[in-house]
């Protein structure tokens, strides 16, 4: 806003020329500044033509940040956009570090999980940032605005490709407009760090199979088996052949006491992956937990015969099953 005020004092024509200024940014990017903002300069080739558009997620809420607390504000913005009822004040004890007067990236990712969302760090590409916005996902970005230590979280909520402008919820401004070049200059200093926090029934537009699975497993680890179960189910719709996701789904069923469902998932996985020691071990354990140890024994023996890095865990399971059979 100060910029606009400054420009208007220098002449009203400046405001009228705002569009041309955006054009100049593009021009600068294409000729002079290509080295300064390499990703902006190559966006025309790297971004799919269908995304050479204008998108704005106007329904994304806005929480103006209080002093130093852009972390909680940005996270609340992204979470609220995914339907979580949360305010920045509630997130302060989850991400804010008083002595650092700020929030760490890893804690931003971790805190989203505590609200049942899957948090995913995007690949460091400008094109991926725009793809997520176009898919309807607000993106938290880490910028460095100062000369040295001006780290700041903002939420990218829209862009206009033709004019090369990015729209953000940032600090105290509800709709900050940054030319692509300027955004890249402040964003590249964090190594193009960006994240999305999505409900477990969604998959990011730019999701990579193995990294998204790790993100879902992290949600499971954070202790939300219901949300994780939904996330694994969603994952398997997209990548049905992924045996690790099947193991994850079965584990969440198991954790929720849904042993029958866990068994079904593991049996299907074992049919498609007869050599998977993990699937066999967990299937045997699930059968044993249902009191069906005599069915479990041949399964765990097959797992033990295959060996591999999990053999110690398999031996433990086998011993437990044998002991339960002896007690009968």
């Amino acid at each position: 806003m100060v910029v606009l005020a400054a420009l208007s004092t220098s002449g009203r024509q400046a405001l009228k020329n705002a569009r041309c200024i955006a054009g100049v940014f593009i021009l600068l990017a294409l000729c002079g500044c290509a080295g300064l903002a390499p990703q902006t300069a190559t966006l025309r080739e790297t971004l799919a033509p269908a995304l050479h558009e204008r998108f704005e997620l106007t329904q994304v809420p806005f929480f103006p940040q209080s002093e130093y607390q852009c972390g909680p504000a940005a996270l609340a913005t992204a979470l609220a956009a995914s339907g979580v009822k949360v305010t920045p004040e509630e997130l302060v004890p989850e991400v804010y570090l008083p002595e650092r007067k700020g929030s760490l990236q890893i804690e931003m990712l971790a805190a989203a999980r505590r609200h049942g969302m899957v948090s995913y760090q995007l690949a460091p590409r400008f094109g991926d940032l725009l793809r997520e916005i176009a898919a309807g996902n607000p993106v938290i970005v880490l910028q460095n605005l100062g000369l040295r230590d001006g780290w700041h979280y903002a939420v990218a909520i829209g862009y206009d490709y033709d004019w090369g402008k990015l729209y953000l919820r940032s600090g105290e401004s509800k709709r900050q407009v940054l030319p692509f070049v300027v955004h890249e200059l402040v964003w590249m200093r964090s190594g193009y760090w960006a994240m999305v926090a999505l409900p477990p029934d969604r998959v990011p537009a730019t999701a990579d199979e193995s990294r998204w699975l790790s993100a879902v497993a992290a949600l499971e680890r954070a202790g939300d088996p219901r949300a994780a179960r939904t996330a694994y189910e969603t994952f398997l719709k997209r990548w049905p052949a992924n045996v690790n996701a099947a193991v994850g789904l079965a584990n969440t069923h198991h954790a929720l006491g849904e042993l029958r469902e866990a068994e079904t998932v593991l049996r299907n996985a074992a049919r498609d992956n007869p050599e998977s020691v993990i699937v066999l071990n967990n299937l045997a354990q699930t059968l044993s937990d249902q009191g069906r140890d005599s069915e479990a024994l041949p399964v765990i023996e097959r797992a033990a015969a295959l060996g591999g890095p999990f053999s110690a865990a398999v031996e433990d399971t086998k011993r437990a099953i044998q002991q339960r059979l002896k007690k009968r």
Partner: protein
Amino acid sequence: MNVWAKTICRLLIALMVWMPFQIATAGMIGTDQVVASSPQADRTAVLNFLNRSDVAGKLQTLGLDPSTAKDRVGAMTDQEVQSLAGRIEAMPAGASDAGVLLLIILVAAAVWWFWQR
């Protein structure tokens, strides 16, 4: 206190700190072990719990109370804890937006200058 007593004390303290982080269903191989590039050997497990108590301790010195610090570390993956361990001070912590104006003004001034010529 002799050396052995000290060592045992340290070990017990570390174990007490570690206990709440342990989540596993008996017999089931956990998904995080499967997803991790290499299965958790005992050594990695020990390293993980040392890292977790290290990070939790560090968060406390940065102004959190012990139970908040523990909860926050509990939401992190082993990999995340590993990348934080011993390096929290060097990590960027997003905080202010004071600098944005400075930078935008500089860039806008440059463009303005080009435009007027």
